């Protein structure tokens, strides 16, 4: 028994010793490994961080900007390829490509992935011309706006808010939107205009001269000029406190007329009820108001808007939607037939499809021609032939000045898809990616905030992944 007890107790002691030894042997290398790995991590973090700082400080030779500033500008202006002028010559910088070349030099080809993206919210504001001719556009947008913003938000991850404004004094014009739970408000002339210009005023309407159109002796209602005044409406919306300086705001003014109307004031003076074709002739044949043409007046409001936005609202981009009917472009302006001091309506349909023998127009001006409304209905409105092109020109001027884009709406059904595409395209251009993304690769992550230009504290986030395989470490060692 003593012998057996000795053996068993000895065995127990030995087993315990072995177990303790095994546990210690396991812990020691783990501890050593962790400590070494931590040190390695700190070393690589500091090294790669310093390397990225050096890269962002490099001066890009054409623009003269540091590379960090150039990246931020590329994101802010959503232009991966930027144009510069230097010493009278024009240059193009492919920011994405140059960034990639520098990263290849510093971190090695295929050893990294970099993404620069604007860190901002997006707000959408639609400013509708309140006239009845745009009711279909309003209805389509009301039905589709939620799905547009949801799909873009889900895809991009960027928070998007939206609001609609209608230029009108009739709140029922918002009903379409309110029934879809879309925030909507009307804007009338008391909000759009002031009576005087004063460039030292704190009120933007006085400072940038959004005053009531100078209409005298007119049988015209105020609504005739403020309803289509998409320039003043856009300025009003841009001035609202709800536009957060730290977010990017997209304005979508929607209209089919020149700002402040495509119909000259004198055409509103006369009662054309018994001779509607005279009104039609006035609409199509006249451009001049008392002191300026309707084109000049519209351009002055658009220019005031551009000045306001460039000076004080640099986070606002404008995407005008031109809903001017394409059918009017096809109007055959040759077929008004002028008699003695009165217009005679000429029905092509009733004359076998043939134009009149005398293609004279009522107005003396060379550019003034008539257009045919086949059913000669009063509901048909026709504008001077120069109006359409000037709407496009002025909207394009506004878009280009504010880093936006013009949306031509030749088919009203295209409105939802065009808006969706515009927003998606903008967001895509506000992201820059280079390198190979490998979600499963071991990596060191370095991040930097790049300050975006303009007012407000908008940042672009630069996130750099540097893969830490053996081949990668060879870059440092």
């Amino acid at each position, binding site marked *: 028994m003593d*012998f057996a007890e*000795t*053996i068993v107790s*000895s065995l127990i002691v*030995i087993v315990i*010793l*072995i177990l303790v*030894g095994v546990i210690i*042997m396991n812990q*020691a*290398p783990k501890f*050593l490994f962790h*400590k*070494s790995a931590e*040190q*390695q991590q700190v*070393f690589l973090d*500091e*090294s790669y961080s*310093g*390397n990225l*700082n*050096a*890269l962002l*400080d*490099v*001066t*890009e*030779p054409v623009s*003269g900007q*540091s590379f960090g500033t150039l990246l931020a500008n590329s994101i802010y202006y959503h232009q991966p390829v930027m144009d510069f002028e230097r010493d009278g010559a024009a240059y193009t910088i492919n920011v994405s490509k140059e960034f990639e070349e*520098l990263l290849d*030099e*510093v971190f090695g080809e295929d050893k990294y992935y970099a993404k620069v993206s604007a860190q901002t919210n997006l707000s959408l504001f639609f400013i509708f011309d309140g006239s009845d001719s745009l009711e279909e556009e309003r209805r389509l947008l009301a039905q589709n706006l939620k799905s547009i913003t949801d799909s873009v938000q889900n895809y991009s991850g960027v928070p998007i808010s939206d609001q609609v404004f209608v230029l009108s004094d009739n709140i029922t014009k918002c009903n379409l939107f309110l029934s879809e739970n879309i925030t909507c408000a009307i804007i009338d002339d008391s909000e759009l205009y002031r009576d005087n210009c004063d460039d030292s005023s704190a009120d933007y309407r006085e400072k940038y001269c959004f005053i009531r159109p100078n209409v005298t002796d007119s049988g015209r209602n105020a609504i005739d000029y403020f309803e289509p005044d998409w320039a003043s409406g856009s300025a009003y919306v841009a001035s609202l406190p709800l536009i957060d300086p730290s977010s990017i705001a997209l304005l979508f003014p929607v209209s089919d007329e020149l700002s402040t109307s495509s119909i000259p004031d004198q055409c509103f003076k006369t009662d054309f009820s018994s001779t509607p074709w005279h009104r039609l002739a006035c609409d199509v044949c006249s451009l001049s108001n008392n002191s300026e043409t309707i084109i000049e007046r519209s351009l002055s409001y658009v220019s005031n808007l551009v000045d306001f936005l460039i000076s004080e609202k640099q986070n606002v981009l404008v995407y005008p939607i031109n809903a001017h009917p394409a059918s009017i472009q096809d109007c055959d302006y040759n077929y008004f037939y002028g008699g003695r001091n009165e217009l005679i309506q000429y029905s092509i349909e009733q004359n076998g499809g043939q134009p009149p023998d005398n293609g004279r127009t009522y107005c003396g001006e060379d550019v003034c021609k008539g257009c045919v409304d086949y059913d000669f209905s009063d509901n048909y409105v026709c504008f001077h032939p120069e109006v359409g092109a000037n709407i496009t020109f002025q909207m394009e001027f506004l878009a280009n000045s504010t880093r936006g884009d013009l949306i031509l709406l030749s088919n009203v059904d295209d409105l939802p898809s065009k808006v969706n595409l515009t927003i998606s395209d903008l967001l895509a251009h506000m992201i820059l990616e280079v390198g190979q993304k490998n979600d499963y690769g071991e990596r060191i992550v370095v991040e930097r905030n790049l300050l975006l230009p303009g007012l407000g504290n908008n940042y672009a986030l630069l996130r750099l992944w540097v893969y830490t395989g053996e081949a990668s470490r060879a*870059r*440092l*060692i």
Partner: protein
Amino acid sequence: MFRDKKGIYTILSTFFFIILAVAVVIVLIYYGGFMASAEKKASSSMNVRDLVLDAKDKLVYCYGTPMQNINTKDCNVSLIDGYTIQTIDYGSCSNTTLKDFGDYADSKNRFVFFVSILNETDGTNCLGKVEVYI
């Protein structure tokens, strides 16, 4: 007779357990020595990384950010064998070695860092490379 076998068993078992205990102790000593050596090696490489980072910080402090007056100034950093500083070909800068300091022909390790270097001709910043030998 049983008593005789019992005595032999005792001797044999005692001998066996002594041998076993000695073997266990030898293994533990050997493993301890191995771990000490491994730890020493790891500490050495950790120290090297610390020294290299320290050297780089001292060079940046000495030459500034962006680095300048490289040609006219020698920054002596202890505990490393030597270093070089060169600009990289980009923009108005070319591949040029601005500083080659120390005797590093027999160095075992070379570490590379990127820095910004002032181009004193036009005031722009070049991309530069610092190699530290230890």
